[in-house]
């Protein structure tokens, strides 16, 4: 997200989901769309039926890749050199959009210079991608009338995640595929309200609406509204806290998260949580994290409360109470307000609509979001500045949020960890269709759990043969950080030397293994790549 904010001025999906289906060329990179964002995949399928073309860039031969006109199956961690090579080919073929570059962007020369001096190592990094395929992809994207790029955590969960995103933005601007309807750059959000949680300032450096805590004027405004002096220094990120060993922070309040399954290098997380002087958890299920808490609050589920979620396309929409909270559960709002009052701060809201009124007051992009408006519509897409504003279907219409789009060239960076003799495999992690995040909810369901009852490790038939491995056999999967037991699934979806599995299963907690090396700007850990070894369990 930091990436798009730098280049475009706003870090969100520029399009609406519906627009993706209207593009002539769709480039999907680092997204297993059919499984993780089925509704986006649906738009891609219908676009294909109407004659649109699809380019998939993914180390795995996913279901979507099988339907693509071109599938570039590159090595994980080589997105930047691949995209740089693509851009160079576009430049060479004169398929870039001169007019757009001149009028709507800045810093193009720096990108051009870099592309012309493209390091041979960059070319070598993508040596396994057939040049003809690369050329075909460059032509397809370069010649497209309307092209969109969709990406997901396959791009951001790298040590160079921010640079990855900026390189994607470079490609879109180079060809003038932003600022117009049905063109753009679309980060698909992993969780239902990631967008909203970011928008609402659940981040260490910003207030709601991405207003920096370090900005004095902003702070003065919030301070005025809330009647307290507010801290100016940006706070700690999630990994600073959960990997801090109980020293960075001594007490934690965790609402609806399960870092003890979702965060990388779980041993460190466990060590931290066990060393905290105080840990309070609010959740709907007794999670691994809650097991270690001093206090656990039973929270109401989405079916038991009213409020709003913001989806990937920036659409703020209602979630409505269908039943009363079960047992003695309370909504997280009630819990926070009750705690605030006990700490001597009057926090009283008659409804979530009243909270939204305060949000609208303090958050310019949410300035026109009121529950009554959201009630009588299918929600509103931010920015929506005031009550009469209709919301925004696609971003940067005729104008980037930051003025001109800024090219930020980036060079290839080696992943935090590479396969070696001891750990010869490259392990990638991601989602499966039937489960969501740490599985607390989906695994409680009969059909979902039946359809996908356990974690499976995808391994190429070639590797399976050399290990005399059959599908269904149990393996010890190890990295420098730990070992888990997991069942093998022989699959041509992964290339030789690659392994893939999901992170939903508490029985096979993959994040015991993952690398916490993270992107210096976005602080996003490199979940997608680590070096691993395998051993058959007899």
């Amino acid at each position, binding site marked *: 997200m930091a990436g798009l904010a730098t280049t475009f001025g706003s870090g969100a999906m520029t399009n609406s989901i519906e627009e993706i289906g209207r593009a002539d060329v769709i480039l999907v990179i680092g997204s297993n769309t059919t499984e993780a964002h*089925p509704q986006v995949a649906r738009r891609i399928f219908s676009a294909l039926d109407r004659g649109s073309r699809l380019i998939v860039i993914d180390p795995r031969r996913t279901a979507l890749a099988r339907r693509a006109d071109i599938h570039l199956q590159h090595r994980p961690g080589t997105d930047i050199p691949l995209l740089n090579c693509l851009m160079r080919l576009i430049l060479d073929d004169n398929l870039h959009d001169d007019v757009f570059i001149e009028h709507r962007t800045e810093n193009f020369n720096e990108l051009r210079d870099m592309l012309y001096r493209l390091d041979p190592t960059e070319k070598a990094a993508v040596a396994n991608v057939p040049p003809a395929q690369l050329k075909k992809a460059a032509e397809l994207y370069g010649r497209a009338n309307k092209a969109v790029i969709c990406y997901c955590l396959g791009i951001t969960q790298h040590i160079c995640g921010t640079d990855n995103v900026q390189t994607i933005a470079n490609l879109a601007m180079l060809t003038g595929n932003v600022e117009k309807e049905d063109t753009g750059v679309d980060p698909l959000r992993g969780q239902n309200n990631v967008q909203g949680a970011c928008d609402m300032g659940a981040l260490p450096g910003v207030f709601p609406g991405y207003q920096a805590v370090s900005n004095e004027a902003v702070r003065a405004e919030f301070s005025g509204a809330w009647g307290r002096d507010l801290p100016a220094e940006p706070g700690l990120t999630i990994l600073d806290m959960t990997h801090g060993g109980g020293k960075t922070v001594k007490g934690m309040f965790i609402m609806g998260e399960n870092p003890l399954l979702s965060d990388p290098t779980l041993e460190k997380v466990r060590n931290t949580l066990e060393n905290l002087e105080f840990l309070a958890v609010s959740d709907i299920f007794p999670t691994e994290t809650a097991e270690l808490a001093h206090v656990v609050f039973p929270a109401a589920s989405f079916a038991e409360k009213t409020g709003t979620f913001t989806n990937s396309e920036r659409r703020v929409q209602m979630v409505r109470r269908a039943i009363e909270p079960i047992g003695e559960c309370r909504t997280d709002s009630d819990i926070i307000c009750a705690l605030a009052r006990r700490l001597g701060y009057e926090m009283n809201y008659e409804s979530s609509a009243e909270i939204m009124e305060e949000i609208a007051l303090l958050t310019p992009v949410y300035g026109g979001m009121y529950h009554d408006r959201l009630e009588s519509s299918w929600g509103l897409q931010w920015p929506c500045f005031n009550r009469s504003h209709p919301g925004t279907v696609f971003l940067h219409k005729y104008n980037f949020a930051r003025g001109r789009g800024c090219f930020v060239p980036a060079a290839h960076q080696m992943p935090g960890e590479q396969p070696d003799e001891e750990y010869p495999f490259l392990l990638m992690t991601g989602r499966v269709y039937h489960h969501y995040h740490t599985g607390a909810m989906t695994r409680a369901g009969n059909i979902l759990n039946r*359809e996908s009852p356990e974690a499976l490790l995808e391994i190429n038939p070639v590797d399976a043969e050399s290990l005399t491995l059959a599908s269904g056999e149990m393996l010890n999967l190890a990295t420098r950080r730990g070992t888990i037991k997991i069942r093998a699934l022989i699959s041509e979806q992964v290339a030789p030397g690659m392994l893939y599995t999901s992170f939903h299963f508490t029985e096979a907690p993959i994040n015991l293994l993952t690398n916490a090396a993270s992107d210096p700007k976005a602080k996003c850990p490199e979940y997608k790549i680590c070096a691993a070894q395998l051993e058959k369990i007899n």
Partner: protein
Amino acid sequence: MKGLILKKDNLVPLLRKIRKGGKLVAPVQNRHGDTLFEVIDDLDRQQLDLEHQAQSSLKPFFFPQNDPLATYNCAEDYSFEPVVSAEPTVYFGLRSCDLTAVLYMDVIFSQNGADTLYFARRKEAILISLGCNQPFAHCFCNNTGSGPFLEYGFDLQFTDLGDSFYVEADRARGEELLERWSYFFTPADEDDRKKQYQAVLEARSNFRRTVHVDPAVKRLAADPDLQPVWRELSDRCQDCGGCAYICPTCTCFTIVDQPLAETHGIRLRQWDSCTFSGFTRMAGGHNPVNHAEQAIRRRFLHKLKIDVEKHGRPSCVGCGRCVDICFGGVDMIRFIAMVNDLKLPAEEK
């Protein structure tokens, strides 16, 4: 049977009467613009919608997505207590396809003994259908023998004649209803009957899609092994199960125990879909139906071949709902077109 006429002004007053002593279920357009079958608690506030196709059929009312079969106790002793719940309900405004689907479910749920839960609800139900003067976007009930108007099977069938409804009864419960509330109705005259006939004729010419169901059924009877079709459709399928869930005649289910505590729980019947891989997976992991292609084959052959053999008609009622919803375009209309496009092996030579 001779028809009757109900002035449209009298519809709500009539529904108010027949609702007494039970529930009324009818299509309602909610404030979000979706049309659903809902229980009508307030005839003055809930807006009947006789213009749009309801997004789901009546299936969930007779065969809910989660249906408790029994509660069980396993504290000291192990025992089951059956759960049966049904109350008299009038269903108004269902379309011919949905009514045909209910009649089909009647057949399915009476195989090897009448299904207690289903028929408890079914026996309490009065079905008042509304013929379709104007079929919806993906409708093809004229090709599946399930509409736009029906000859039989309804308790009452309404035909929209502009400012009035032409009303026919087919079953005794419909006749009783007409008799009980006779003062709302006037006898139809020759002119009304002509108008009704005209509406039926016009409706038949109003279909926007032509779907050649019979040739496809014949083709499948002759040769059900259509590998290219199964392959393409299984590639497109995104495994949501939506086609089976939305289909008014899909009745596959699973039975599971839902523990409520150590000592007791509920035994539930839940919707299931033959396209799911877990549908056929056995304990221990062996799956005799291993490929997505096989699952897709199963689904379409069941609808257009096996049910023709077993029950004399395909179990597709032409409602078109699967066309609207499928992520990958794995729907009945596409399937039938693909089947009819395939050349018979004999023709290829």
